[in-house]
């Protein structure tokens, strides 16, 4: 079954490890970011995701809380039922409480994946997926500075969906103005933007879109060494997932803790229980599973680099050295109509990096208007 993720900050390898097929919503062929509700202030991207979720009975869609529009889009998508949708709480801060929320959400997503027909990942499978994705990301990161922008976007898409590295074609040097492309998700129909920028005399030297280079997390700590991870930062899972408990366990319990039974451990200060394995078979690999999941959660949580974070200094810290090393002379800010988070960032980007910023707004995430082509050409011309 296909599981469409609306954010690269949800590990695709977690879905693959459950024997399901992760897909990036931004690559979905039939994602149509619509405009009927635009006048009512609905973000075109969120609207597209809601419609997509409603039209895919055989697939699942994972929304996130990264923005209010997607969060409430989930409410709209599930207003009349809809078991194929899941809302992942992506924390905005980087506090220890936020870290726990992220870890717990990964477990909760795991339960959802099992309900969809996925299989409980063994530690070996999970570790394999993590290492493979890790290695692929590393290779793509290394290739990025010299890659053709469009080819890099395509390679990132393949990596996300298949977890493997495919080499992007190299950029052919010529006289052009180096630009950074920044913003939220860049859907596949919008990849023509790379060609349009090149036709205007520019070149995207930094693809800092949500599903671009930003999503290529650095190597996950302890991904290949689960035992040590367990000792260094393993936090007991707040949700007694089937991964930890064995399937078929866990009824709701109230805040007095009623419902606890033998073989369960209450974790002080966290207010949740963790089941210890009940059978010798289940106990095999228990620590390794916990450790591998911890490593995955920590690796992603520590590398989320996005505009919705508060403060979003990590985004600026990520951009600064890359803008300098790639020699970007301007920033093209690609944003969806109705996206407050990126729109508000334009002025801060100008101030922070001393670079001109060209906001290019799209209502449907597909292509660029003639008016905006004009603006883009003028932008590049002024930077030459």
């Amino acid at each position, binding site marked *: 079954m296909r599981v469409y993720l609306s954010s690269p900050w949800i590990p695709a390898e977690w879905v693959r490890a459950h024997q399901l097929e992760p897909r990036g919503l931004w690559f979905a062929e039939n994602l149509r970011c619509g405009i009927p509700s635009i006048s009512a202030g609905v973000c075109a991207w969120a609207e597209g995701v809601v419609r997509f979720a409603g039209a895919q009975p055989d697939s699942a869609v994972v929304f996130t809380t990264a923005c209010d529009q997607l969060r409430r889009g989930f409410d709209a998508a599930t207003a009349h039922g809809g078991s194929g949708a899941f809302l992942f709480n992506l924390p905005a801060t980087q506090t220890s409480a936020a870290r726990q929320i992220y870890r717990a959400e990964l477990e909760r997503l795991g339960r959802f994946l099992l309900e969809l027909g996925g299989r409980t990942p063994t530690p070996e499978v999970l570790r394999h997926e993590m290492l493979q994705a890790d290695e692929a990301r590393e290779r793509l990161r290394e290739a990025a500075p010299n890659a053709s922008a469009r080819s890099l976007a395509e390679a990132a898409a393949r990596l996300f969906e298949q977890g493997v590295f495919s080499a992007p074609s190299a950029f052919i040097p010529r006289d052009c103005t180096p630009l950074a492309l920044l913003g939220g998700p860049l859907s596949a129909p919008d990849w023509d933007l790379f060609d349009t920028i090149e036709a205007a005399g520019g070149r995207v030297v930094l693809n800092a879109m949500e599903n671009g280079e930003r999503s290529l997390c650095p190597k996950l700590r302890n991904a290949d060494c689960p035992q040590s991870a367990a000792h260094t930062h393993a936090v007991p899972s707040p949700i007694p997932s089937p991964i930890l408990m064995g399937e078929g366990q866990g009824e709701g319990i109230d805040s007095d803790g009623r419902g606890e039974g033998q073989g369960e451990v209450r974790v002080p200060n966290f207010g949740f229980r963790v089941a210890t394995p009940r059978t010798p078979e289940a106990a095999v690999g228990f620590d390794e599973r916990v450790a591998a999941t911890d490593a995955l959660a920590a690796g992603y949580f520590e590398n989320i680099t996005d505009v919705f974070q508060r403060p979003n200094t990590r985004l600026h810290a990520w951009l600064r050295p890359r803008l300098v090393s790639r020699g970007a002379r301007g920033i093209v800010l690609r944003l969806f109509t109705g996206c*407050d988070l990126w729109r508000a960032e334009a002025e801060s980007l100008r101030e922070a990096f001393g670079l001109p910023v060209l906001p290019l707004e799209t209502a449907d995430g597909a292509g660029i208007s003639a008016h905006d082509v004009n603006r883009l050409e003028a932008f590049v011309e002024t930077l030459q």
Partner: protein
Amino acid sequence: MNALPGKLNLSEWDDRYEQLRAGGLSEPAYGGPLRRHVIRERDFRLEQLRFDNSPAALRLWNFLLTENERLHQARARGCQIVGTMKDLGTVPVMAYSLPGVRAFYPDGAWWTPCLMECSDRLLQQAEAMGIDASFCPVRAMLPAFLNGEHFPRPDLLVCSTGAVCDDFSAIAQRLEHLGQPVLWWEMPRRRQPVAGEISCGLPGQLVAPEIQVACVRSELQRVGQALGELARRNLDDVLLAEGIRAANRVRRLLQTLRTTVYTAPAAPLPALEMLVVEMLAIHFCSDREEALAVLEGLLAEAQSRVRQGRFVIEPEAARIFWVNPVADLRAMNLLEDFGGRICGSDFMFAHALDLIPEDLPPLEALARTALADPMVGPTSDRAARIIRECQAGRAEAVVISRIPGASHCAREGEIICGLVREKMGIPAIELEIPPVCDALLPALGSRLQALMETVRARRTR
């Protein structure tokens, strides 16, 4: 001196004020004629509003309109000023638990363009800072912060983030980029516990998994430490418990007032005053003790009017449940002009009206209360409460006022309207109300008129 209940415009209030003064009206230090707010503060919008004619309402308005002045005075007396943003009701309870600390919501500046009829040019200044008209009018907060001409710059600025409005979050981030440090704290999106999770009851008949309560509790602990450092005093459980009891005194009074007004056979107080008075719940309008006194005065007035069967709105007025605060205060007058009255409300902070549990450790109680925020959970939860309160108030229709540019308004109205129609079978409409709605009066009037006609037609079926 005692007049029949009614509504007065500003000029009529000038005369009324003189009569009251001549009759020996006793006022607090911030008292005075309403007119002075137009002259001194350029609150021109007051000239377009109609106010309740009671001394209790006068005190309420003067309390509201002197908030910035009182905050400056408090600072001059050595008080620490805390700006608290977005959570609407929780952090101020903590701040007021500490002696010498006052908390206010810079978010409140969203009414400044309305009150000053945009003569302050805050919205234009916000646009020059990169926050244009596609954002909620709360963007007025940004230049107000930086120019210091309204509220004092706080000694500590706290903002909840996570499951909050995008526009607000973006504006607050812009503020930080412009040099104002912000203490961010995480508010997860409330959800139902799943099988196996410990479930915690929250105020407002809600539940959340313990891990979310623990998250908020630990975040509030961080906020509490910062407040304690500011006040140079540990914000311990004893202080917090007393702060919660004091907040609950305000909430109890407000609950009684709402019940008195919303369930009376006709409205003993106007919708506009009810909107303003409900706002006292979130941060006590920067003075907790005085907020109690203001509430007591209004409650006494409302109860007296109900006893005497004297009302400001006719009994046949359509009973309307109102959702969301209005960017232009005049909209509340309009509702009554077209034959409606308020019989219930959700001004986005229902959790600040509920009592904070006093039988739990204080931080736990505050965490549960914060998580009960209608804006951090599923829209269906908010709709469920609205429906319950519509039933209690025998609402005949629901009006959802959209706030221009507010990200939550993009979706929630449609969902709430749908659920209200489905569960209650009463009409529900959305109205978008800008900070100064004069240009839209014909359109707004038509929609409200049509709604009232629908309500009346349904009565005769």
